[in-house]
């Protein structure tokens, strides 16, 4: 490694990256899954500090009992903060877990996630890739009811399915209904359950060059599943502070108080410190896995050198076999001809012998005639 002795400007590269990202802004897609009344909408509105989603009409809430469908609702918003633009997509899943029989109620959700991956895949393959519509889900919040017991079978099934497809973040909603001690026990039981069932949840990267960052990351990772309190209302605490929280007769449950709940940690995880990590994990792990699976199912394999070698060898083999087959044919044919030629020679010899015999007969006759003639000739007078 060579080390230049005075400033070149390489140290500026991260700043250049910073500038490019600032200019381009970001796309962020978040999905919330949980039973009705879990506080999904409140949480979203609290998280983004804006009324992102109107509350559902109380009467309409359970209207769909007979239709038995989980809906997918998409909200798209553009948020600008300090000149930084975010295209935010919120995916809500009303109707989830609201029926008497909830088996397979997660299917539409899982299908939706896969469809976003497939859709991106199709767009990515096209010749023109400008303006790709990307709705791949970067984070999926799963709302666990604050029962204080453990995960329900439905939770386990859904989390299993979600965890293998997206960055799954389990959340305990309405955490102000559980005491601290109960909460710790509840969290531990949930974690045990997650571990036991091999559920894949999002783990933020912890290691960092900076000790403070590492400590903060560890705290975030350890707080999972995140117990949250949602509130859009400003209330006044007994000591006179105006905070987002819930006013009870016995005190104020503050949203942004780390003693009261994990909202701040979750917000850090989702936005302030690990948003990039959520995005890149989605693109580099979940999407790539989906794509590789899908392509493999389509019968595709990589053109690796070994396959190529095998393929080339096979082609060569086939060619050689063809040649060999022909050589063989030529050889049989040739030997046939050689036999024929030999027969011809034999025939010629036989015929020659026949002629020779005839000829000798002729010669013999001639000699006889000569012999017969000679006395006559001897008798004849000389001229």
């Amino acid at each position, binding site marked *: 490694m060579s080390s230049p002795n005075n400033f070149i400007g390489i140290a500026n590269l991260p700043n250049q990256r910073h500038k490019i990202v600032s200019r381009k802004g970001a796309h962020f897609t978040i999905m919330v899954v949980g039973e009705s009344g879990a506080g999904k909408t409140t949480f979203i509105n609290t998280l983004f500090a804006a009324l992102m989603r109107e509350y559902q009409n109380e009467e309409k809430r359970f209207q769909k009992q007979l239709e038995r469908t989980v809906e997918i609702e998409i909200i798209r918003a553009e948020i600008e903060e300090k000149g930084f633009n975010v295209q935010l997509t919120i995916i809500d899943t009303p109707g989830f877990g609201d029926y008497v029989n909830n088996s397979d109620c997660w299917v539409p959700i899982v299908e939706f996630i896969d469809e976003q991956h497939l859709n991106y895949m199709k767009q990515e393959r096209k010749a023109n890739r400008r303006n790709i519509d990307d709705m791949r889900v970067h984070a999926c919040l799963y709302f666990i009811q604050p029962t204080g017991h453990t995960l329900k079978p439905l939770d386990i099934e859904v989390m299993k399915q979600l965890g293998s497809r997206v960055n799954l973040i389990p959340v305990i909603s309405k955490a102000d209904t559980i005491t601290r001690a109960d909460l710790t026990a509840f969290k531990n039981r949930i974690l045990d359950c997650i571990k036991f069932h091999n559920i894949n949840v999002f783990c933020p990267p912890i290691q960092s060059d900076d000790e403070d960052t590492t400590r903060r990351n560890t705290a975030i990772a350890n707080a999972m599943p995140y117990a949250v309190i949602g509130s859009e209302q400003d209330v006044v605490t007994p000591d006179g502070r105006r905070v987002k929280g819930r006013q009870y007769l016995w005190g104020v449950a503050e949203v942004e108080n780390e003693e009261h709940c994990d909202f701040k940690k979750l917000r850090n995880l989702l936005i302030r410190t690990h948003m*990039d990590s959520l995005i890149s994990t989605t693109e580099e792990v979940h999407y790539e896995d989906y794509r590789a699976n899908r392509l493999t199912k389509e019968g595709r394999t990589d053109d690796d050198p070994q396959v190529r070698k095998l393929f080339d060898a096979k082609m060569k083999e086939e060619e050689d076999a063809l040649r060999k087959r022909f050589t063989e044919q030529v050889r049989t044919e040739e030997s046939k001809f050689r036999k024929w030629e030999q027969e011809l020679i034999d025939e*010629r010899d036989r015929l020659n012998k026949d002629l020779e015999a005839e000829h000798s007969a002729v010669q013999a006759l001639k000699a006889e005639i000569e012999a017969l003639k000679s006395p006559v000739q001897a008798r004849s007078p000389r001229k």
Partner: protein
Amino acid sequence: MSAEVEQPQIPIVKKKPNCFVGFANLPNQVHRKSIKKGFQFTLMVVGESGLGKSTLINTLFNTSVYPNKEHLEAEEPPKTIKIETITTNLEENGIKLKLNVIDTPGFGDFVNNETSWKPILEEIETRFDLYLEQENKVNRKKIVDERVHACLYFIAPTGHSLKPLDIEFMKRLHHRVNLIPVIAKSDLLTEEEVAGFKARIMEDISYNKIQIYRPPIYENDDPETLQENKEIVLRMPFAVVGCDKEIEMKKKKVRGRQYPWGIIDVDNEDHCDFIKLRQMLIRTHMEELREYTNEVLYENYRSNKLIASGNEFGDGGNPLARFEEEKRAHEAKMTKMEAEMKMVFQQKVQEKKNKLMQSDADLHARHKEMKEKLVNQRRELEETKRQLESGARPGTPEKSRKGKGYFK
């Protein structure tokens, strides 16, 4: 598979959070991650030999990217343009940069340089193809980017204007790579000559509609950045002097070249544009160059290629499909080969057969003819003999002396 999945049109609402949510932290997150991951850049240098390409690279990165070349007199000049890549790992304040420098020795050094640009364009496109191939793989976890992010083109300090070779080269390459023209060894020209030369070069460039890399202007740039970029553009094409040796000037060590009439200081903006070139290439626009290569140059190349191959909506070069295609081609070839061989074979066999049948027929015909002759002769002789034996005087004895008549 359906051709298109229609996304429902969802209205986008503008929202303003009541308090700081933290989205604005994302660039910082990316910043932090980029430090960890390090950077990578591929730079190509093109220019006739002796224009100081290696020296400039060494000066730019203040490192011996290039080992000192041995100039051996006896060395045979190359017959073709070579492509050489040197990789150097640089680090500054903990920021790592993997720098690939592609050199093209031999460019413009021949008697006929008409197609000098060709191997260079091919190199750039091959690197695009390589990336495209990786992008289409099932497993893309180990994708490497070896695309050329910028090309420094060295113009000889003739003081006239661009040579036809320069124009040809730039015209051929400007849609494939970020072109950065530089005037090499500008210490050979006076200040006035440089100004005139630059003006003529820029005229040539705009007349030939050559697209050279210019720092992009964004609406939300701060005035300082805008001013900086403006100054950079004004200095184009950068007149540079390269020097990796230090000399003493006024008890201060500077990188420069000493002449009897003075010292040219590479790092002095009044003397040459080295600082501005480095400013753009490394300090402010290195990542922009990469971004432009990826988003514009590569995308254009890719979509043209896919459209040309009729794969506009296709699966982008499925290797398996390619296998199938090759297999079919191979099978067709085999069938053709077999048919040809069969034809030749059958023809030969037929010829041989005919020949043998002919000889067979000839043999028997000739035999028959001779046999007849001999039989006749014998019959006559027998007649003569009988006559002689019966005492009658024979007629003229037949002296048939025809050859033996054996077949040969």
